[in-house]
């Protein structure tokens, strides 16, 4: 298992559903669970990733950067349990979790 932490400047959208959290996905082979929680982060977004596939830091950074660019979230903590999902699946789950809070 590898733990990765990322923090980035967020975009223009704060979560507005009022929900305490949203979950997308299940921790199963080639899949992952994304837990999104609104959190006061001064406009930033944080990602805490636990993954079974080590040495993919660059791929995670690329997927997350793309996600932030497209969806522009701010003040959200994303906690992730990953079971070797490929990048497009990670991207889909991030979008789904974010849409649960939007």
């Amino acid at each position, binding site marked *: 298992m590898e733990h990765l932490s990322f923090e980035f400047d967020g975009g223009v959208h704060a979560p507005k559903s009022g929900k305490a959290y949203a*979950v997308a996905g299940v*921790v199963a082979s080639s899949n992952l669970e994304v837990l999104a*929680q609104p959190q006061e982060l001064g406009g930033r977004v944080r990602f805490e990733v*636990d993954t079974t596939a080590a040495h993919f830091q660059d791929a995670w950074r690329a997927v997350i950067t793309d996600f932030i660019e497209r969806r522009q979230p701010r003040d959200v903590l994303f*906690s992730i*349990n990953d079971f070797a999902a490929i990048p497009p699946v990670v991207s889909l789950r991030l979008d789904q979790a974010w849409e649960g809070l939007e």
Partner: protein
Amino acid sequence: MKQTPRISFYEASARQRVAGLLDPGSFREILPPTEKRTSPHLGLFDAPVSFDDGVVIGEGTLEGKPVAIFAQEGKFRGGSLGEVHAAKITGLILRAAARKPQAVLGLLDSGGVRLEEANAGEIGSTEIMRAIFEARRVGVPVIGLLGGSCGCFGGASIIAGCCDALVASEEARLSVSGPEVIETVMGVEAFDSRDRALVWRTTGGKNRFLFGKVATLVDDHIPAFRTAASALVRPSTPLRLDSLRTERDALVRRIATFGTCTDAKQIWEKMGLPADRVSDMTAAELTAAKPA
């Protein structure tokens, strides 16, 4: 033949099942994923954890009736009973025994005890059983709902056996030993675990229903599960010596009648059912055809 879309129980995640079964907006989760009560054991095996350890627990209402509910996530490590997972279920049922909602709904979707935490899981399973008997002793019925992708095997199947009543779909599978285990122990000639039709007609919901193990057979549709579970909500009949004797006598009669059958189809034939058609019948058709 145009089909009206079903809301599949088999397909749904544990969270989707809970949301679909209970009255909208009524569910209050206990130990939600934000609490992050994850398994203390899986990390030692370099295995990923889940924020709810593969089980959703909480309270809500079912057609207005207050109920406690737990739902196993079959897709996370086969819905396996780990230490935290089992403790969440035990705690929920004991809380129900104290607070007396009208029922506990148990959505079982599990291959049994989690290999990586076998000792804790075994103990946890027996604690769940004891909690069920405690709830039943005080009159709170425990209703098992079966129809997930993982089936209900090992420790989970014994938990199912402790319930007041079971609701199942054709897609459900209920057996102490899983197909692969039987094949490994008895040989492929005795049971070919890759013969899907054989696995389902032996362990599947329809056969369990015809045997009387399952009280209500439903189609794979969450609203059908809801209606069936709600109809079964009535005060639990506590287990007593005489009720156990009655059940044992029924089992003795069953062995006497069907003990020589080598395939479920022979059993169905003996029951007077059109054995080749059973697999194609809907839940309603089979319920109507079932001998009294």
